[in-house]
């Protein structure tokens, strides 16, 4: 009973937030709605005994990624409202409609049709407490997936270097702009 209630409330929060992200005119509102969705998903993770992922979801997504979004919005001053009516190409709206209905029917239909329980190996061994979840995840991460785990560190270093290189103000462009201004 409590499970059902938690799922319904969290799902409503998730869907409201998701619709808010794509319908809000102001990017700041979109970012705040994204936080709402992410919190709802964190609640659902807890409901499915993925305690570690719920914590990481809040810390990484809501704490880091959305803050990064807000920083960029504020720094660039792109928090002007976008007119949703004018900004869409006519064909774009039809493409979106076709995509949305088509994939929705396909996905939900498939889930309803393939309703029989999936068979698989029981590796987790029943319901796990919070500590047990972290222990299992750590064991899996540092044994079976240890190469992938090490590669993600490489990926993060590449992302940091790429972000610094991309967002840096290039010297030659600054020089060119100054020259242009001088000519005029």
């Amino acid at each position, binding site marked *: 009973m409590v499970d059902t209630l938690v799922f319904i409330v969290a799902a409503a929060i998730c869907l409201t937030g998701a619709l808010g992200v794509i319908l809000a005119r102001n990017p700041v509102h979109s970012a705040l709605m994204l936080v709402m969705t992410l919190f709802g998903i964190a609640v659902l993770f807890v409901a499915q005994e993925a305690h570690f992922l719920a914590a990481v979801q809040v810390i990484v997504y809501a704490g880091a990624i959305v803050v990064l979004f807000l920083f960029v919005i504020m720094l660039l001053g792109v928090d002007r409202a976008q007119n949703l009516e004018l900004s869409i190409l006519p064909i774009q709206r039809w493409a979106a409609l076709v995509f949305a209905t088509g994939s929705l029917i396909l996905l939900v239909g498939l889930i309803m049709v393939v309703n029989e329980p999936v068979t698989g190996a029981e590796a987790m061994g029943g319901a796990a407490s919070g500590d047990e979840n972290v222990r299992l995840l750590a064991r899996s991460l540092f044994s079976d997936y240890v190469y*992938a785990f090490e590669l993600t560190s490489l990926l993060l270093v590449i992302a940091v270097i790429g972000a610094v290189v991309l967002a840096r103000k290039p010297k030659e462009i600054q020089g060119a702009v100054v020259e242009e201004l001088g000519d005029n």
Partner: protein
Amino acid sequence: MEITTGWYLVLGALLFVIGGTGLLIRRNPLVMLMCVELMLNGVNLSFVAFARQLGDIGGQTVVFFVLVVAAAEVVVGLGLVVAILRRQPGATADDLSALRG
């Protein structure tokens, strides 16, 4: 009414579709990146639901990697957006056709 794995999968599918629709109808590159995050979260939810149903921790491990890749993707994507908007203030996705041959 009991909440089965199917309900989580349907919610994940809904989030994925909402994110994909937003990606198609919005032109602000920042909001488009947020829509990608929505799609990733819909898939994460499905992974965790299957991990629960199968009793296999591997699903949660995959979600962990998706989180890391999403963080890296957002960092590089926002770096690109900053670089583009600095050169061309107020640019939308439709204005970024400079690479068209």
